[in-house]
């Protein structure tokens, strides 16, 4: 690999590329590789915490950009491109990879070098990607990952010979264990990063012709003494259990219940802890602030508003920990396989299952989790139906209204109470709306040929703590960023609306505030649903986040004290009929009252079209069904 001696002029060093302005541009290196080659593991290994997630301009494909610190205090920027099998721009992922590598992507200069990562245990097939990448003419380091697997399963390969054949340096590494990674740092420091690669010893094949490329790869494999390793024995054994006709579905069910249970109950103590922390710190801060308006803004507005969102952080972290373990271990692909037939009935596919399950905690991480779905139409359909799943933010609202209006009676024996039945009914309602919407979407605007489902089953692997931890840090950052921007803004606006206009320098009673004015303004529109202006204010504030309605109603009905939920329930009882209460529950089951979800859908779909359609559809459905519920209940009771 040290074949650069005597060619100092060709060594790419820190010197800025000719023709550019004074500020020296740092080098950009792209990581390219097929799916399941360990691309992300390598990226994490190289960059650690010095990375950020971003979307390419105009497309939904996201990429990660990270900084690699080299010894001489220099930095190299590394771009993690989507996993592709070829550079033929057919899918969006392939187009992005193709455009970045050929320098056609806006905002990203053409990379100075390429790290091509391939799975050494499956080299003959993965080498197919080397042909189009090498023909780009960029300095390329060919990284053969999973060296530990190759060795333990008895595979063999002559690395120097392969480097000769390809005309590029080759490094045999294990990204998960970190062995051999120093060769990548050497390459990045410019020791082997040359301006142009030597011509490969053998002719590159015609790139469009896959069978020819494949034959070329076999030929190279033969010339370099490549011995494919034995099949992964443990994976076969585990699959015999996880895909067993009886045990398989049972394990699947167990995993689903465990995820569900953890999201709900496991996160509870942490959430209570955060809640208590926000309240006591708020009260403590309140004593420190002399000015009443400032105190009200900080405590009632910002602290409580942002706090009501941060409280979901434990759930989100636990959920991503689970998804991380499932994905990194390889079980997620098996779960998708098992769920596929059921999901196919609704026009979806197996990979939609985990995101939809996650949506029971919160639609935001669920929508972020749809990135594992490669088929774009399936992905959009999953994003559009995810907010119908009963997220945990609906729960406080459901509990308040059910507690106020549904009698605490038994339905079937001592096990199932009427309140639990109504709650369960609301969960079912959301689920039914989701699958009917999925069918509607997949048979109309998002119709696709069903033949396109193909799913690679990666070998089972131990997830590494490092990769799981990085994933959690990454997701927390994204989540807290949002809480610090969108939610913060909305919290301030809502506070201002209920605090103004001032009367004699004092805030008004809630019925004279701007918020009440808005409530009265929308009252005619929501009267048919059985709601008055006070509920109207609650509906407006809950546009920020659903559970906000609980604290808003608390303020409106003058329940200053947090412990007075019972008082609030009695007050509601006087203002709402049973029909109106049921209508409110139905409205919350269907409506898309969540700024965070709207923001994340916009980000993930790359525009306002889909969040707009989704908001209009869900709100109309909510209005219509709440209207029906109000009138049907009024007739019956």
């Amino acid at each position, binding site marked *: 690999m040290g074949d650069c001696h005597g060619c100092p002029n060709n060594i790419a060093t820190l010197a800025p590329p000719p023709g550019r302005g004074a500020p020296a541009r740092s080098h950009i290196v792209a990581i390219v590789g097929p799916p399941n080659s360990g691309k992300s593991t390598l990226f994490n290994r190289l960059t650690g915490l010095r990375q950020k997630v971003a979307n390419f301009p105009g497309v939904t494909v996201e990429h990660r950009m990270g900084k690699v610190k080299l010894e001489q205090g220099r930095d190299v920027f590394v771009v993690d491109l989507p996993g592709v*099998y070829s550079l033929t721009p057919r899918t969006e992922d392939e187009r992005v990879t193709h455009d970045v590598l050929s320098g056609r992507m806006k905002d990203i200069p053409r990379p100075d070098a390429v790290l091509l990562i391939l799975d050494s245990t*499956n080299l003959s097939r993965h080498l197919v990607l080397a042909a189009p990448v090498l023909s780009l003419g960029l300095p390329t380091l060919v990284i053969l990952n999973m060296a530990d697997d190759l060795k333990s399963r008895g595979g063999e390969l002559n690395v120097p010979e392969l480097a000769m054949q390809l005309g590029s340096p080759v490094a045999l590494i294990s990204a998960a264990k970190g062995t051999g990674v120093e060769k990548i740092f050497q390459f990045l420091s410019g020791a082997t990063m040359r301006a142009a690669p030597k011509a490969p010893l053998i002719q590159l094949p015609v790139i469009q012709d*896959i069978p020819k490329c494949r034959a070329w790869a076999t030929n190279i494999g033969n010339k370099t003494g490549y011995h494919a390793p034995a099949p992964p024995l443990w994976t076969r054994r585990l*699959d015999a259990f996880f895909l067993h006709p009886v045990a*398989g579905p049972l394990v699947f069910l167990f995993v689903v219940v465990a995820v569900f249970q953890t999201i709900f109950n496991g996160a509870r103590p942490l959430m209570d802890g955060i809640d208590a922390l926000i309240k006591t710190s708020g009260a403590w801060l309140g004593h420190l602030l002399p000015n009443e308006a400032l105190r009200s803004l900080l405590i009632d507005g910002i602290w409580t508003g942002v706090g009501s969102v941060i409280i979901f952080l434990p759930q989100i972290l636990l959920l991503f920990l689970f998804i991380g373990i499932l994905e990194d271990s390889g079980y997620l692909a098996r779960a998708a396989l098992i769920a596929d037939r059921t999901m196919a009935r609704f026009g979806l596919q197996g990979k939609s299952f985990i995101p939809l399950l996650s949506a029971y905690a919160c639609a935001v991480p669920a929508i972020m989790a749809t990135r594992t779905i490669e088929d774009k139409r399936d992905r959009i359909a999953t994003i559009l139906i995810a907010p119908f799943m009963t997220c945990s933010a609906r729960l406080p609202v459901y509990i308040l209204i059910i507690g106020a209006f549904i009698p605490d009676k038994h339905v079937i024996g001592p096990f199932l109470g009427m309140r639990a039945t109504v709650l369960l009914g609301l969960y079912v309602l959301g689920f039914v709306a989701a699958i009917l919407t999925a069918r509607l979407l997949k048979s109309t605007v998002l119709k696709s040929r069903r*033949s*396109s*489902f193909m*799913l*690679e089953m990666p070998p089972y692997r131990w997830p590494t703590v490092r990769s799981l931890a990085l994933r959690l840090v990454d997701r927390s950052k994204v989540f807290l960023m949002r809480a610090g921007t969108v939610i913060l803004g909305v919290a301030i606006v809502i506070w201002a609306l209920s605090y103004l206009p001032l009367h004699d320098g004092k805030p008004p009673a809630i019925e004279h505030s701007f918020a009440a004015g808005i409530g009265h303004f929308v009252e005619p529109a929501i009267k048919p649903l059985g709601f008055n202006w006070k509920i109207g204010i609650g509906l407006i504030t809950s546009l920020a986040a659903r559970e906000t309605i609980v604290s808003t109603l608390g303020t409106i009905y003058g329940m200053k004290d947090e412990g007075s939920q019972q008082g609030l329930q009695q007050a509601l009882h006087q203002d709402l009929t049973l029909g109106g209460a049921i209508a409110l529950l139905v409205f919350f089951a269907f409506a898309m009252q969540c700024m965070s979800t709207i923001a994340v859908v916009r980000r993930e779909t790359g525009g306002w079209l889909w969040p707009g359609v989704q908001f209009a559809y869900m709100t109309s459905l909510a209005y219509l069904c709440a209207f029906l519920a109000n009138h049907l209940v009024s007739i019956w009771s």
Partner: protein
Amino acid sequence: MQLSVKKRAAAKNLTELKPGEEGVLASLDLPEADAQRLMEMGFVPGHSVTRGLSAPGGDPRVFRVDGSEVALRRETARRLILK
């Protein structure tokens, strides 16, 4: 392509493989884009394909091809013709 159409009635496809049974792929009777993608995943004519396990109910099925395992739905597997 012409050949595979004529022989369709007699030709065996992937769904007819028994668990563990191996066959050699002859052609992919699918739209261009799907065929390309499958070839990239290892389903290249001339390569051997072995049937592996399947989801409960038998669909989708896992096939071992070219060093990896890929799950296909029945309607896709039906279009992959064996020699």
